[in-house]
């Protein structure tokens, strides 16, 4: 007898087809968000704020009320949505450039104010949509189209460790970094995403998950190799883990 082991969450738009590149982890990340909202039975009460970058297409896949923010301003717009409608579940889905470069002020201040919001940030160490330029999370030595000989300190300085910084904000209720390179890690990622929504639902403050993701196209790698890179190059710099959880002890 056949057993169903995988099911597309109901909250996907009908006939939605991913436009993400093959091997890109965005697809998995979006599905995890969808599964969490479905399990929490709150999709009908949710407003998504999409950011600029590959992440903006979220609204093409999830059948949610969605608002598109200018580059970097997702958490400002989410703040406006939530303050206007405090009973809604409001989340942002952003890339690392949006969250931690152009939008760092908005991101940090949303966390500092302890906004009851959930922010999901995809860290793929590059600007994906514009063709693989150096971003705030590009790791030292990494070659990009704007760091042709690799990220060096003289020209570019250091990458930002987002989850650790957000954990330092007093208004943050939950901050974690996860990866999607293996099935067990995908499970952990989903738990973290769920937690980041639960703290919002309980009114405990800012919930944040940084997801280490692949960008096979701009990394010029096969999906397999890209996940190897997540493990071998990214994880030593961006260590997965829960950096703050006020619901634990």
């Amino acid at each position, binding site marked *: 007898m056949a057993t169903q082991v995988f099911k597309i969450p109901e909250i996907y*738009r009908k006939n939605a087809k991913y436009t993400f590149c093959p091997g890109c982890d965005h697809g998995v990340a979006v599905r995890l968000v969808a599964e969490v909202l479905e399990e929490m039975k709150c*999709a*009908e*009460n*949710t*407003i998504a*704020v*999409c950011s600029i970058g590959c992440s*903006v297409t979220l*609204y093409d896949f*999830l*059948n*949610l*009320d*969605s*608002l*598109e*923010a*200018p580059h970097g*301003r997702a958490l*400002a*717009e*989410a*703040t*406006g*949505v*939530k*303050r*206007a*409608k405090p009973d*809604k579940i409001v989340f942002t889905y952003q890339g690392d450039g949006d969250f931690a470069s152009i939008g760092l*002020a*908005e991101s940090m*201040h949303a966390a500092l*104010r302890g906004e009851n919001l959930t922010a999901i940030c995809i860290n793929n160490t590059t600007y994906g949509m514009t063709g693989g330029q150096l971003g705030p999370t590009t790791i030292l030595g990494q070659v990009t189209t704007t760091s042709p000989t690799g990220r060096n300190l003289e020209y570019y300085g250091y990458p930002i460790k987002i989850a650790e910084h957000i954990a330092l904000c007093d208004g943050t209720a939950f901050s974690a970094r996860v990866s999607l390179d293996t099935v067990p890690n995908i499970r952990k990622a989903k738990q973290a995403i769920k937690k980041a929504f639960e703290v919002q639902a309980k009114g405990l403050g800012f919930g944040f998950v940084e997801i280490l993701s692949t960008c096979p196209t701009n990394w010029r790698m096969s999906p397999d190799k890209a996940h190897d890179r997540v493990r071998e190059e990214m994880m030593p710099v961006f260590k997965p883990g829960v950096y703050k959880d006020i619901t634990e002890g």
Partner: protein
Amino acid sequence: MAVDCLTDKKVLIKGNYAIANAAVLAGCQCYFGYPITPQSEIGEFMSGKMQELGRAYVSAESELAAINMTIGACATGVKAMSSSSSCAVSLMQEALSYATSDQLPVVLVSVMRGGPGLGNIYPSQGDYFQATKGGGNGDYKLIVLAPSTVQECVDLTYKAFYLAQKYRNPTVLLADGLLGQMMEPVTFKPYPYPEIDNSDWALDGAKERDGRIIRSYAPLADNQCVFLERLYNKYKLIEENETEWEEKDTQGADIVLVSFGSTSRNVKTAAKILRLKGIKAGILRPVTLFPFPSKRLQELSNTVKKFVVVEVNMGQMVYDVKLAVNGKVPVELVHKPVGAPPSPEEIAKRIEELL
């Protein structure tokens, strides 16, 4: 002194407080702002009042954040606003461009000070271009209302919320440091406009319907063509329905003085001085800067011998007047770069020199 009341009794109040109190009475549910002189009283008043009423107030980390928070709140269908001044309104241009494309009823109070750059805190009309032509990208228009008295600060704040909702278009109340800081007696009548039903577009959760998307991103060129045509049809409608101006003594006038905002107070008296000297001077004051009363100016150009535009900047509105008059009769400029407007006597004298 801050007054918070709904009253037919006259109260003496600063322009900034009048605007803030009117916004509260208009039903503004959310205020987002960042301090800047000469409009800080608006945020100060709102910080107390909104909390007292259980409405939203956020002391934003920047004007970038403030205007985007306003967009977020407006997207849910509530009335929301921000306020700021010149160099900080510059920071908001990107979001205003988005808000026109998102078709969101953002209300922004812009209390002009001297520029460019940090400039100074004194009154100015140097942001006429900023408000009417925009600093954001793409083809768009903001509805722009220009009060000239503190009572108009109240009445046009009401109107700003109404027009923003009615046309789903960002609307700017363009005041200046003089109006913001001066006091004048006003009355606060109830919000006089009908509430606009926004249940067909506001984001409130996709319950028993498909998720709505408020966005400005149109990946296909054709889509964007269709969208812009539609947007500009809306602007045409706004021009037909909402153009507002004040006109006096233009019948049989040889010259018509055109001015807006606080400057028009002095210009009215200047026109009186000129008439006492036997010069047939009338005035025209655009109340809406977009839509601009171009048609009326065009009509007047058939009978008037000269237009004189008076403004406190290096000459901005004068271009819109020239465009309307289209070379039919001369359009002259009397201006002061920054500060309180020239005195009526000085305006009259400088106009006489032009004749």
